[in-house]
């Protein structure tokens, strides 16, 4: 129990308190690639603080409109507790497994989409439909990647997956599944070239066009948390080595690996233009096949 609370605190700290810092890192990289100086690392904190204090404009008095941003961020915090960071057992190991993790991340996306539906703006509805289509193709990729791990360790418990992989070392199926998950991350975190649901230049923010002030802050925060959670899943399930069994050291190693992953995401984000929605869909169908190939290799034990 005490261990669970301790590791849970670490996860919440990373997903909620430190996630803007990761975003700041990406913005810095983007600026360097554009040959700019870029904002300071802590700029996302300033942005969030500024937005939280701004006037909250609402198009209707719907209760959903008010609840949805909080629901989005809080379900992502629950998701953060289902992922191990530095440990083998996630803080909420007994509450759910990898399938629950996929669904809780889905719950966050559903809350976001509900908010955009309630806001009645046609731009936000277009954004919502695009987000749903992206989810339709990206969520299965994530599920299949985790299935590869599940087939390998014959269990859906995240702790079993991490334990199995750290003992057995790399295998072809896990490499393919990890690759598929990595390719899907860009879309999940709403980064270029797959930020079609926001698409500032065509949909003026799409999903978030009617979100302002503190609501927009919470949605932005949720996107940052999502990136941390995804990179944690990727490094812990698909690259769990080395495990020293010394908690602070393991956490430090994991965070370092997550930084590398986020760095890569930042670079891809900076050098790519936005793709069209149908291009994104066909792309993820291909990525899906990478995941399925991983599944096939897992079945034959490779």
């Amino acid at each position, binding site marked *: 129990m005490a261990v669970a609370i301790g590791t849970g605190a670490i996860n919440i700290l990373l997903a909620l308190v430190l996630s803007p810092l990761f975003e700041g890192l990406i913005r810095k990289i983007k600026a360097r690639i554009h040959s700019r100086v870029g904002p300071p690392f802590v700029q996302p904190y300033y942005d969030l603080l500024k937005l*939280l*204090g701004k*006037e*909250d404009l*609402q198009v209707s*008095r*719907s209760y*959903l409109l008010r609840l949805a941003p909080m629901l989005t*961020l*809080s*379900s992502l*915090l*629950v998701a953060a*507790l289902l992922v191990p960071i530095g440990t083998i057992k996630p803080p*909420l*190991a*007994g*509450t*759910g*497994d990898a*399938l*629950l993790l996929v*669904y*809780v991340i*889905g*719950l966050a996306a*559903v809350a976001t989409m*509900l908010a955009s539906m*309630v806001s*009645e*703006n*046609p731009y936000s*509805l*277009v954004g*919502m*439909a695009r987000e*749903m*289509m992206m*989810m*339709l193709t990206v969520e*299965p990729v994530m599920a*299949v990647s985790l*299935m590869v791990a*599940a*087939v390998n360790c*014959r*269990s*859906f*418990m995240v702790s079993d997956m991490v334990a199995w992989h750290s003992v057995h070392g790399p295998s072809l199926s896990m490499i393919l599944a990890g690759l598929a998950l990595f390719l899907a991350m860009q879309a999940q975190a709403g980064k270029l070239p797959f930020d079609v649901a926001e698409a500032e230049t065509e949909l*003026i923010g799409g999903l978030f*066009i009617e979100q302002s*002030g*503190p609501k927009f802050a*919470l949605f932005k925060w949720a996107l940052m948390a999502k990136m941390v959670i995804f990179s944690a899943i990727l490094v812990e399930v698909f690259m769990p080595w080395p495990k020293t069994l010394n908690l602070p050291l393991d956490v430090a190693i994991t965070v370092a690996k997550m930084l590398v992953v986020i760095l890569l995401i930042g670079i891809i984000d900076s050098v790519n233009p936005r793709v069209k929605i*149908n291009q994104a*869909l*066909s792309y993820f169908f291909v990525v899906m096949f990478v995941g*399925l190939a991983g*599944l096939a290799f897992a*079945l034959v034990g490779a």
Partner: protein
Amino acid sequence: MDPLVVLYGSFALLIAGAIVTCLTSFNARASGYVAFVVMLVAAVAVFYVAARVFLYGPIVSQQPLLYLPGLATSLTVRVDQMSALFLVLIFFISLLATLYSVDYMLYYRHESVVRYYPFLLAFVAGMMGVVTVSDMFFFFVFWEFMTLASYALVIYEKESPVTLRAGFKYFFLTHIGTICMFVAAIILYQHQGSFSFTAMAAGIKELLASNPGLVDVILALFFIGCATKAAALPFGVWLPDAHPAAPSGVSAILSGVMIKMGIYGLLRVFVEFLPVSHTTYVWGMIIACFGALSLFVGTLTALVQEDSKRLLAFHSIGQIGYVLLAIGAGLSFLPILPAISAVALIAGLYHVVNHACFKSLLFLNAGSVMYRTGTRELNKLGGLAGLMPVTAATALVASLSIAGLPPFNAFVSKWLIFQTTIIGGIDAPLLLVFGVAAVFISGVTLASFMKFMGTSFYGKRPKLIDSLGIKDVPATMIVPQVVLAALCVALGVAPFAVLTVLYLALGSAGLSSYLPSLLSLFGTNPIAVGLSLGEGVTGAWNPLVFVVIGVITFLVVWLIYVDAGAKVRITESWYCGEHHEPDLVKYRAHSYYLPFKRLFTFKIGEHQIEGFYPEVKLPKITPPEGLRRALDLDRLLYYPLASLIMVLARRFSDVHVGVAQVYVAWMSLGMLAAIVVLLSLAQAL
């Protein structure tokens, strides 16, 4: 009280209620309340019986109610835990649907309820018979009872040719299925000389040793019959027409309960009659294949629908696909992996229960929208959440449930289905593929219901709807929706209780020797599920902890939000500085997911096939001209008779010339004739 007497009593009450509602049909509401009271009393009685069965074991009638010596068959009643489970489902959903109908039927101003409530009660009585008898012959009697009553309900709007056509398709296809099952039963009857369930089981067991080929034929015939009723593709093509055609209360029963009778039949045949053998494995795989086909094609086709009830009907096919996939997986693992098999079968039953709750609720929601707006077309709807808040909230719960999001009910059943197909799929890769498809389709279901919610309840409200002055539906329609929504949540957060009941139901269907103990499957924690499919715990789900942690994190975020202290101001939607009429900028149902729908739409020749669902158009049956003339009673009887009468009448009218002198002449002639006759008679005497 003797539970059997209670059971017979509630059946008699339903039939008596059917007659009474015939007599009260001049007043639609009064009729509705009579039907509701009858249903309520019958339901309470049946719940009592079901509770007895779950507490003290099956109830069997000692002497048959009816014996047909010529057929050597008798009406015997046997209520085991499986029957009790389905009885509870039937009566719970039908009770709520009847209550809902009281006000809803006022929507049909030009139709009489004499064709509604009596058939509704008879329909429920028929389903009650199907799940309680233990004799194949009377199983068919009640099966027909149910089919015919539901046919009458489907064609309730008898003026509409679309409805009549849907009704005909339903009637025709389900009867093909019934004939298949009947042939299978007769083959077994020939071997055993009896229609009782025990004889059926014994027959299959003997034939399995002597003539396995014939067993496959029998099972195929049974499967076609049950799959037609359960609306698995390709047998279930009647469903997308029939369910939208019926009044919404009936649609809820049809989708929520009646198609589950097919699942009940499948379980009886494949779990109870068929001994565990290699045949079980083969047929499990076949059932799983049809399940995967249904869930894939049915749900993708649902995504392109723009009529609310038709959309829901296609999802019924999709969700039945999940059930069949689970049951098929369970059957095929029965000989090799008992733990995974038991969990898969329980998952299938769990999904049956869940589907009854959320799909009935969704049909009631769609009915409420239709009741107030008069349309089912999603393209014309929008923004109803502000006007019908309770209906919108319950529809949201149902949508999240069917999409399988935690902590709602379908999450548990889908989670178990994914677990068993994927972990079990290590030994049967085909099922693994189906499992992946099921995960993908789960997302498609979510997409479809986001569209349903976004087009009917959220988004911009069209002017036309604003002008109707809508408010939420009356209390008799609200109550069933709220109860079902509450149930969707309750079945999700208390999975262990449900699993225990389903475990007992499965055990009663002749599987008790194969089932591992409940605690070894789902762990010892009474508020959580610690699933073990192999060694140790392989999956965990603790809804209460999940909800508590969710509430805590929500409060944390809420505190951040409140602490910021931002002022709220209500504004207009922002259209980039321009002014637009709501109708012009409405995002219609047709526009949703177009790029994705295009990926799943193929054009073969001239035919546009959407979501690869081939629109089966039954050819218009025209009998040969000679037959039509030979059977034409109008030509043979009516017209000759009518013309004969016309000729006679014309002759008679010739007499009436309208001149007084002629009439006087006729009268004096008549008098003269009378006098002559009387005088001659008097002389003769």
